[in-house]
């Protein structure tokens, strides 16, 4: 009993020496400042990862745009495929031809940007998603929020917009007592909030999972008691599986964000549907 407990104690993140197990924690997402500590322009590891992802995306797109040819190269084909998917598969599909054409650029931008900022979570040495800290998902969500509020008010007027959103047609009048507050919350709070939290929580959880698997593997292989070492194989395999899963999640969450952008725009701009 005593030995079991003591080995448990060594697994848990209690001691500070190097041979102990470092469980990933929320502190990973708030690393120490590198520059401008304490100012609104503080730069830490996560910010640097975001800058790298942004720079990489800009470089890739600039190279493709500069070299864009009628007969595309391999890189151009991939970028064009994603652009085509955002335009046809998301914008046109959900918003229809006319609105789809108008909003396809925004949706494409969101799809590319969020994917690049997500994928850093599985890039060696970066190892954390740019979107795993709430600020960036929040700004993207606010962009979408502002876009559908402003464009809907512009095309339907304040009254038309509120009527369409808060008093959806086709339900008995007394239902509005319940429905209207719910719809109000939906439009003004839940849609942007869920956009934000879904993305950031997914990426945060992904990082925690991967970090847990790999730090456990490292601990089990190099520091654990002999009998526990084989367990490291299990955690390594788990880590590999979760790594693949995270690659998929990075793409999936970018897609989800982009498609919800289209859906929210559609609901705001065409409330009669």
């Amino acid at each position, binding site marked *: 009993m005593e030995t079991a407990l003591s080995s448990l104690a060594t697994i848990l993140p*209690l*001691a500070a020496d190097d041979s102990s197990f470092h469980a990933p924690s929320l502190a990973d997402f708030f690393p120490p400042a590198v520059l401008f500590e304490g100012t*609104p322009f*503080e730069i830490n590891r996560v910010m640097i990862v975001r800058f790298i992802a942004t720079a990489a*995306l800009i470089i890739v*797109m*600039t190279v*493709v745009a500069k070299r864009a040819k*009628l007969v595309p190269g391999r890189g151009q084909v991939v970028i064009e495929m994603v652009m085509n998917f955002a335009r046809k598969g998301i914008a046109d599909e959900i918003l229809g031809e006319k609105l789809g054409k108008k909003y396809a650029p925004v949706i494409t931008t969101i799809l590319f940007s969020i994917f690049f900022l997500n994928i850093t979570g599985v890039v060696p040495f970066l190892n954390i998603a740019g979107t795993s800290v709430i*600020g960036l998902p929040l700004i993207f969500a606010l962009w979408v929020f502002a876009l559908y509020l402003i464009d809907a008010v512009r095309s339907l007027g304040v009254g038309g917009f509120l009527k369409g959103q808060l008093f959806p047609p086709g339900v008995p009048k007394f239902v509005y007592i319940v429905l209207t507050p719910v719809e109000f919350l939906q439009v003004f709070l839940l849609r942007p909030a869920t956009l934000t939290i879904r993305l950031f929580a997914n990426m945060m959880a992904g990082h925690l999972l991967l970090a847990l698997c790999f730090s456990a593997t490292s601990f089990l292989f190099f520091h654990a008691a002999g009998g526990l070492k084989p367990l490291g194989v299990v955690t390594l395999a788990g880590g590999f599986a979760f790594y693949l899963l995270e690659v998929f999640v990075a793409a999936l969450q970018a897609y989800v964000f982009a498609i919800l952008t289209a859906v929210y725009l559609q609901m705001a701009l065409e409330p009669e549907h």
Partner: protein
Amino acid sequence: MIGTAVTGLITAADEAETPNPLLPETYDIVWSLVIVVVLAFFFLKYALPKIQAVLDERTELVEGGLAKAETVQAEAEAALVEYQKQLQDARTEAARIREEARGEASAIVAESRTRAQAEAARIVENAQRQIDAERQQASVQLRSEVGTLATELASKIVGESLEDEARRSRVVERFLDDLEASTTAADAGKGN
């Protein structure tokens, strides 16, 4: 032991002082805003229009190519129709020329036949005329010779009785008239 572990856990949590992950830090918001604005401008003002322009150009090119192919096809068909028409015209023309030539040939044959017949008729007529002339000449010559011969013969037969000039002349005339009459009668008898 368990107590220590719990205390350690609490201490660890206290030490970390991690902020609530749902509440964004100011710097997080600031840099996120910068990143989103930069990416939005870059995509919406530069990258997407530029790549889209190439995509549109390609679509246009493909559609233009299809339209051009259609035009060329139509032109080829028109040319084919034109050629067939020309060929038909040429055939008609050839048939017409052949027909004409055939007509001309038969006309030529007919004409030469007519000419040959006329020539034959002329030759026959000439021959007839020559025969007539010769017969006339022979007749004249014969008349004088027959006169002389007859006179000589008569002189020999009659002798001196016919010395008288006037009587001799009368006898010869009468003889010749008789002779002519008999010749004419013989001609008429031939059915001329």
